């Protein structure tokens, strides 16, 4: 009786989700099975077109690779940052957490255009490198994958850091001391104690960063430009420029499925390694 009542409480939310997410998703699937852009003639032509074209596989591959690169970069920068945060005195932690969540507080457009200023030919990075004499010609960073990964790394950083910090700050600080007292170096402690125990946070961070960076349409287009084609750009072109909705639907479903596949693989890994927080 009690159980039933609690279960019923979730009904309004479940219905709202169904109306807002499920219905459009089903419509999307439906639309993809039409041959013409007027959506009159049912068929598999759009699927055949997308999956018959080697270019599609390249775009899918590039998109997933962009996600992987961004995830790697956020780990490489974020993990040490999380360690610094944990060692910092409380007052500094407050400042750090503000800096960490800052990208979430800014509009996508603002932070993306900020990166244009930073990465451009006359931008901060080039000016600095030129004046230091490290390079003689301005580097091309805008409209390259490198520039895009750099900016996505900053933009997605909170999604990596917040789960990581929340898991790591719940670890017993005595574990580190215990490891040291047993003769382990800092590196051994890091790789045999801290990294395995922070896995749940790391995996959650990877999930969020991957899902967010592979679908970051604005950053991908504004910083990457139209020469770097990823699935979101393809969807936009097909739906709002060419008005071929069935094809756009096929690409959308492909993006959804690719991201979901990687994300579920990651979360399966995460569940296998998880659950050790709180000794």
């Amino acid at each position: 009786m009690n159980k039933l009542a609690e279960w019923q409480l979730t009904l309004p939310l479940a219905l709202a989700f169904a109306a807002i997410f499920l219905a459009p998703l089903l419509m999307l699937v439906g639309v993809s099975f039409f041959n013409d852009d007027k959506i009159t003639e049912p068929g598999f032509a759009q699927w055949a077109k997308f999956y018959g074209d080697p270019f599609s596989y390249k775009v899918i591959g590039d998109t997933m690779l962009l996600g992987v690169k961004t995830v790697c970069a956020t780990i490489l920068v974020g993990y040490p940052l999380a360690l610094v945060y944990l060692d910092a005195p409380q007052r500094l932690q407050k400042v750090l957490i503000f800096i960490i969540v800052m990208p979430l507080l800014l509009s996508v457009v603002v932070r993306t255009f900020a990166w244009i200023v930073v990465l451009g030919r006359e931008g901060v990075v080039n000016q600095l490198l030129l004046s230091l004499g490290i390079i003689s010609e301005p580097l091309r960073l805008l409209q390259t994958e490198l520039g895009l990964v750099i900016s996505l790394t900053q933009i997605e950083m909170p999604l990596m850091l917040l789960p990581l910090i929340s898991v790591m700050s719940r670890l017993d600080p005595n574990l580190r001391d215990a490891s040291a007292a047993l003769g382990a170096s800092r590196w051994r402690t890091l790789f045999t104690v801290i990294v395995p125990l922070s896995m749940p946070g790391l995996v959650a961070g990877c999930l969020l960063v991957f899902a967010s960076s592979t679908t970051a349409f604005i950053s991908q287009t504004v910083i990457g430009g139209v020469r770097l084609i990823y699935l979101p750009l393809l969807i936009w072109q097909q739906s709002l420029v060419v008005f071929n909705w069935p094809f756009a639907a096929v690409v959308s479903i492909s993006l959804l499925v690719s991201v979901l596949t990687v994300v579920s693989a990651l979360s399966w890994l995460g569940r296998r390694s998880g659950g050790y927080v709180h000794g």
Partner: protein
Amino acid sequence: MQSTPAGRTLDVEDLTVRYGQALAVDGVTLAIEPGEVVALLGPSGCGKTTLLRVIAGFVRQAGGRVRVDGATIDHLPANQRNIGIVFQNYALFPHMTVAENVAYGLHARGMRGPEVLAQVSRFLDIVQLGGFRERLPRQLSGGQQQRVALARALAVEPSILLLDEPFAALDRNLRLDMQIEVKRLQRTLGLTTILVTHDQDEAMSVADRIAVMNRGRVEQFDTPVAIYDRPQTLFVNGFIGTTNLLNGRVAALDGGTATVALDAGATLRLPAPTGLSTGAPVMLSVRPEQLALSQVPGPESWRIERGLSLPLGAQLVHEARTTDGASLKIVEPRRASPADAARIYCMLAADAHPTLFPRST
């Protein structure tokens, strides 16, 4: 590997630790003999854990030295000190099995293969957890976890063993078992050991010597019997055991003996501490079992007003009040005493050794 390591000496010299402005440890000096068990006893926040953390190398001292076998270890990082520590919450690695936990320090020292297995088995057998090798820490009871933590600390054959309130989380019976077990292990391994506790019974039963700490200082460092019978400061006196305090005044001084007139109405001759002068106000501290009841008045006894008498195991605890208003506790062996109601005088028992402290008025 079966050899028992000879115990090391541990010398803490004038150690001072600051957290910001606050002094957590204030000029502590302890000279600990090889194979000795020393209990650090004191109220919460008096600096016991901090002292251990300095010895283990987790915290840097502001001043003073720590020596093991005469050599300072202050410059060594924690992972090169070879000091075993068991934390109050055990701090077992939750993602490793019992065997992996115990092997951790051996691997960290570059030991590999069968040697590790042998050592792990040896110490798991010592703590009687041979059958639990593949369990994860969270699948163990508190006492079992505590024994794994002990095995993990001991397996690397440390030169010194530090135990930070290792029994605090255990229930009474288990605590007693573990105290005996730790004592036995420490004996067979000949390990110099520091045990932090704020349980005075534990300190009394496990330790060879007790360092009573208060506000970052060691108030007295002595054997349990000496601490109990001859507390050096009022703090130690009040912190260890129960005691009766009686006000009085020095009537006369004669070499090492003071004649004290108690406000309660008796005159006692007692060994005098240094620095007393005739006429000085003093406080007499005497344990409940060092007082006796009597039915005859005399110069060395004082009149009391009897309160409740409670049987406590094999003993009787009498409550009483002196004529000057101090309350007393008197403990006697339980025996039928026909004249009990008539015993309205209190005196020092035959083997009593009360302590005099100067009193500020």
